[in-house]
């Protein structure tokens, strides 16, 4: 169970990290313009899908499709206030990314968020990424798989 539990935690970490990771890449690719259109579409879609799963999970709908996201969220956001703040972040992220996705797909989008708003969202996603790393220490779980002491510098290169 200890090993299976560690694998499960890593799985949960990766499931929820999809939100900041694909969100950041989607924004980066969108700003890069037509040369990265394919990447932008793929990453924006992934991020929106994960936001939907996370929204369902944060509202208490736990099902096989979002079980990893749901378990991760329970560890990261332990109070109602934190969960509510996260739900609001998800909503904003999804709203903005859906506009970007429509634009990437060639649809007419009247009110595209300005670059500054995208930068602000990117910062929010980076902050979420840090929050996830603190709540689910992936490296610690990885280290426990081999029974070694945790590397002191947390650098991954020791």
């Amino acid at each position, binding site marked *: 169970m200890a090993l299976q539990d560690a*694998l499960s935690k890593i*799985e949960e970490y*990766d499931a929820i990290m999809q939100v900041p990771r694909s969100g950041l890449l989607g924004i980066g690719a969108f700003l890069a313009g037509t040369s990265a259109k394919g990447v932008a579409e793929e990453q924006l879609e992934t991020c929106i899908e994960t936001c939907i799963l996370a929204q369902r999970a944060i509202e208490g709908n*736990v099902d096989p499709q979002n079980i990893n996201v749901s378990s991760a969220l329970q560890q990261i956001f332990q109070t109602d206030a934190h969960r509510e703040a996260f739900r609001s972040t998800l909503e904003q992220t999804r709203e903005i990314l859906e506009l970007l996705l429509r634009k990437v797909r060639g649809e007419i989008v009247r009110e595209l968020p300005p670059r500054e708003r995208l930068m602000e969202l990117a910062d929010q996603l980076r902050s979420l990424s840090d929050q996830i790393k603190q709540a689910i220490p992936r490296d610690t779980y*990885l280290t426990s798989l081999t*029974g070694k002491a945790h590397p002191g510098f947390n650098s991954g290169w020791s």
Partner: protein
Amino acid sequence: MLLKHESERILDFVARERNRLLPRVRQLGHERSSSSSFVVLVESFFQSLDTLMEKELARIDAIAALQADVASEALDDLFKGLETTLSFFSAVTGNQVDVPRELYDLISWFFELSANVCAPPAYALTSGPELASFDFRRWAKVLFPRFTDLKAALEHVPFFFISIPSWMVPSSRALDWPLIFHEGAHAIENLANFVGPRFPYLPSDWPALNKLAKAGNAQAQEALSTYELTCDFMATYLSGPIFAWRFLKDHFSVSRALHPSYTHPTPELRIRVLLDVLTTQGFKHEARRAEAAINERLGHLTGPAPSPVVIESLRLVQGSYRAKLSGFTEEDYKQKLHRYSRLDTDGLKSELLSKRPVLVDPACLFTILYFDEKCEDKTIAELVADCIRLEKIRRVYQSMGLHG
């Protein structure tokens, strides 16, 4: 290349580890034929890295232009995944010296019995903190989730690591080895998947069910119970009464019998299910023996009643396995003993207690010793391990048409 140095460090690390680890693993393969499938796994892991690493790194480099920190994090994750995997391989290689080859002989014998439902799984035994097993395909999926080609290359062939508590590994604990059949049964069920279709609206993998059960999903808890009871059933159906005896001895406690966990049924239920299996297989006397033991331990206490869904699912799954596999019956036991010697169970037990080997298959060997406290002696357990080895050699000779 923005992250050139970070990529190069990964390539250097893999090259150095290949030079350090691969010769050790190959040497192990020369010394112990039981490790041959583990050697193949490690070699194919390095082969996959040789073929795919440059491509994976180029893919990450492409995203570095869009978000350097995300790309750098991907490289960190890749490095940590590789470091953990190779470190795990190294630990398994190192502790093979502690794992008796007789234990490999026993587990391989068990897997061969299930050949009608799936090819005998490739596996390695390793000492660890607990009795557990996992498929390396899950490891690859979890540790390399973003590296699709690498993950796909590793997902082709199932490979099971069975972790055994270090106290159970030496041949002086050979009487407890049949408890490992439960983990072997997890590997078989993982490949055969008879339980999954009974719960069509749930994921069929144990870890996902575990999480759903933890979140309070009653169906997932029923599915998990069915998995666990199926593995107990397989251990008993194929190897006879020994599993029930050792389970009672090593895993039973009144507390656990009364308070179920969300993943495992209570030990009381597990034993009571096995009593039915033993009775059906003709081991009525052995079933009564185990029943008396559990009644004595529980006294007037009783645990929660089993869910009807679990009992019905288990009945159907047992039917599927029974249709494909021949179980070990009391009739088989008598016939095999008769073919081997004129002595009956008591006579052969006396032989063993007098430190003389008895060359019957492991199911018969363990049944001879069933519920006899005199067999707890360390030397007898070591003799049992020797008998497993000798019987394996006899089988090999026989398959080659050699006698004498």
